[in-house]
């Protein structure tokens, strides 16, 4: 029983990391029709930024600096390279973002070395909380609550602001939005930076839980792709549902039969692609356009 609760909570924490990355992937795909293989790099850049800043100015400052740095990085990337690829085929987009991911990963390796690093949990957040029969690390609980609030804020941005309106309309019909005078260009850049900032913030916040190395971006990106495909590419709540599902599935399988844990999420993705290619909450028109 204790083991099961522990597994469920671990699955929740891991799932929420996937959700945070997947939400960025999915809204960027929704507005820009861009499949971003470099999105995992935002997580890694955020984690390393947080690490460096936190060493000198404390953990909280690191959490503030990480999303800002990553958002700026994303805007530069968007302006310098990616905007030339918005209208290219998905294949060209996959290739160029894959290349960017390689460059970022290797740059991080050059600066920080290939070794695994982990930021210690700050002293004021250490300790455990008694949850029924088990004691669970306080930081992980706080992290889970924080990510949930963050996702809620992103959702509010999408439904309450003018930018959000343009983004949601752009998901439906990009050209129509442009014809109606919506500045989808500017909105796209903001969405891109927002998705990146979310990934970067979570990367920094998760570094006391999961150690990082230059390959971390890819390690989290691949399961996040599983998450968006399972949830439905372009669907916000699909990414949330998919992330929680995949996180729990992984965690529970680890408990039941650990060797199968890594295989099962890909089996899950393959089944979804075969029987419901638009994903659990996706709309079927998206798949035809891509």
């Amino acid at each position, binding site marked *: 029983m204790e083991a099961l609760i522990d597994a469920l909570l671990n699955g929740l924490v891991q799932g929420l990391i996937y959700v945070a990355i997947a939400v960025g992937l999915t809204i960027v795909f929704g507005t820009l029709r861009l499949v971003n293989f470099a999105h995992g790099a935002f997580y890694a850049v955020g984690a390393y930024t947080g690490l460096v800043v936190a060493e000198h100015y404390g953990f909280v400052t690191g959490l503030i600096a990480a999303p800002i740095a990553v958002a700026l990085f994303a805007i530069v990337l968007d302006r310098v390279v990616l905007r030339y690829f918005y209208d290219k085929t*998905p294949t060209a987009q996959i*290739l*160029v973002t894959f*290349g960017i991911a390689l*460059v970022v990963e*290797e740059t991080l390796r*050059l600066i920080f070395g290939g070794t695994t690093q982990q930021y210690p949990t700050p002293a004021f957040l250490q300790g455990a909380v008694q949850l029924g029969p088990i004691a669970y690390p306080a930081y992980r609980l706080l992290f889970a609550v924080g990510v949930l609030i963050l996702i809620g804020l992103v959702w509010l941005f999408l439904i309450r602001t003018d930018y959000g309106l343009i983004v949601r309309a752009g998901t439906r019909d990009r050209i129509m939005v442009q014809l109606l005078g919506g500045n989808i260009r500017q909105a796209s850049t903001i969405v891109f930076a927002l998705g990146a900032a979310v990934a970067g913030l979570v990367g920094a916040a998760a570094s006391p839980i999961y150690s990082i190395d230059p390959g971390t971006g890819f390690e989290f990106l691949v399961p996040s792709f599983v998450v968006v495909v399972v949830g439905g590419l372009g669907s916000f709540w699909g990414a949330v549902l998919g992330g929680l599902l995949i996180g729990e599935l992984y965690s529970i399988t680890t408990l039941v039969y650990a060797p199968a844990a890594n295989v099962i999420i*890909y089996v899950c993705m393959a089944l979804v692609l*075969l029987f419901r290619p638009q994903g659990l909450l996706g709309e079927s028109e998206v798949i035809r356009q891509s």
Partner: protein
Amino acid sequence: MTTASVPAESANAARRSLIASDLRFVLLAALGLALFPLLLHPIGGYAGLATQILIVSVASIAFNLLLGYAGMLSYGQAMFYGGGGYVAAILLLRAMPQHPNLWLAVLGATLVTAILALLVGAVTVRLYGIYFALLTLAFAQMVFFIVEQAKDWTNGDDGLQSIPNAVLPFGPWNLDLTQSLPSIDLGIFGNLGDIKLWYVFAAIVLIAVLLFTRLLTRSQFGEVLTAIRENEERSVMVGFSAPLYRLAAFGIAGALTGLAGALRACYDGTVAVESLSIERSGQFVVYTVVGGVQTLVSPVVGTALIMYLENVLSGKTTAWRLIEGLIFVAVIVFLPRGVLGTLLKQREKNPRSIFVRSLRPRTEEPDPLLKPVAEGHRAGPMSIIETFKLGKLFGRFAANHDIDFRVDPGELRAVIGPNGAGKTTFFNLLSGTIAPSTGTINYKGRDVSRVSGTNRVHLGIAKAFQTASLYPDQTVRQNCRLAALARVQGPFALQVLRRSTRLDDVDALAERAMDRLELTGVAEVRAGDLSHGDKKRLDIAIALATQPQILLLDEPVAGMSKDEARKTEGLIRRLSTEMTVLVIEHDMEMVMGISDTITVLHQGTVLATGTPAEIRDNQAVQEAYLGGHTEAELASG
């Protein structure tokens, strides 16, 4: 007799020149590969690196076959590369530790990966773009983790070491590939004795693979594969089975990749789980894209370039992987044709022959796909196509519903109706582009509701699209030839070595279709460069080259000038003397002029059917078109 021998002779001459060209290609490749390790020496490479490059190149060529020729971006090629390595290693370690035989190990591995590729392909080839890339990636990850966990067989993360050095039985000899060539000092080009027999073997394999892919890409199979990449919608609607073609390409590429992985494992004497990793899959992407897609040897150039740089730079700086990434991004952004493609800047062209022979008469054989019609739905003796309560739902919107429709053989039927009446949906149902939600379609008294569009083309239902659907990069003649090829060969033919030019009927059918639509004058023009009217007529010619019995024309004169429209109208009228023609059209002058009968669709169902005169006087039809207003009201408003 004399007339027949002329084309036969020129055919022989053409064949001889093709063989000579293939021979030249092999000799050039052999010369290049003979010089390669020697040239590598003064710039810091070594013979062993040359061998590795050649082996990995085989996998890159296979990847390019998918990406460059079939348009499939697979992110899971490592499952075949590593898979081939593991199968070869396990065969050598377990099945024949006493008498390790390289042939058996490599062929066994190739066979197993071919089967794996066909199994994975069976479920992946129906997806496109990002979905295909991600699903192949998912399967590769499954294989990775399964191999990693099956420790009894694979030794988990440690991989398999000390794979026995396999001998290569060849005629009376048992070759040991680790032996060196005779020691001859070649000055700055190193010593011939540094090169092992492994290099020679790898070079022979690479040349064989290059020759095979060269033949494949120019073969009938390669021709269709390229056509499907260029325009799948059209390819399906001239009668090619796109999924089977893609599956075959995936299987062939998987087998070649497995071959490369097996060779690499035998050469290294070890195999590790890294050979199955995402990074491995990504490497094939990098090698191929840097070299360039769509030319045959460019992946070899890319592989050699990156592996060489990796080797030279990794000793000098820790940043070589970064440099590799930067090269990759730079190539995608600045040289989308790849390094070699940019240097060459020319496209290979298929030489085509133009012999004509008599048409093969069209035989009527019962199709096993056809079910007998349910009782009570039996069509009348005269109808060629008939629908009962046909309907199509998109979500909750009924684009078509309750359509009862019947056309007699030889009839020219116009289908008209206001915009949004469901005309194109109705044609898509008839042609099999989409499946009906309700009701049935009978073709010559047999239920074809569940027969795919591809198979319906082979039964004799062909369609020209509302927006002309062509192969823009091919000539007008080749556009028609592809349709004729589908007619002659059927939905799928695994002719990976022979060219379609040997099939004389194809050229004759194409020639006739062009002649009917008065396109012979522009036969050698690239389809994408045609005028709008010629494009529309070419679309009809493509449909005609499949030898249809029913021709579905979706707005054939839309957007044409008045003169062009009248010309096309005449051509359609002539076609209708030989086959049943169904035409959607807004040009009322034409509709009233050429139709035997008119069916009016309104709000997704049949409003009226009758002769042009009856339709013109029909009150309901007038209301549908004018929205219940009189013409005078509309004119004043």
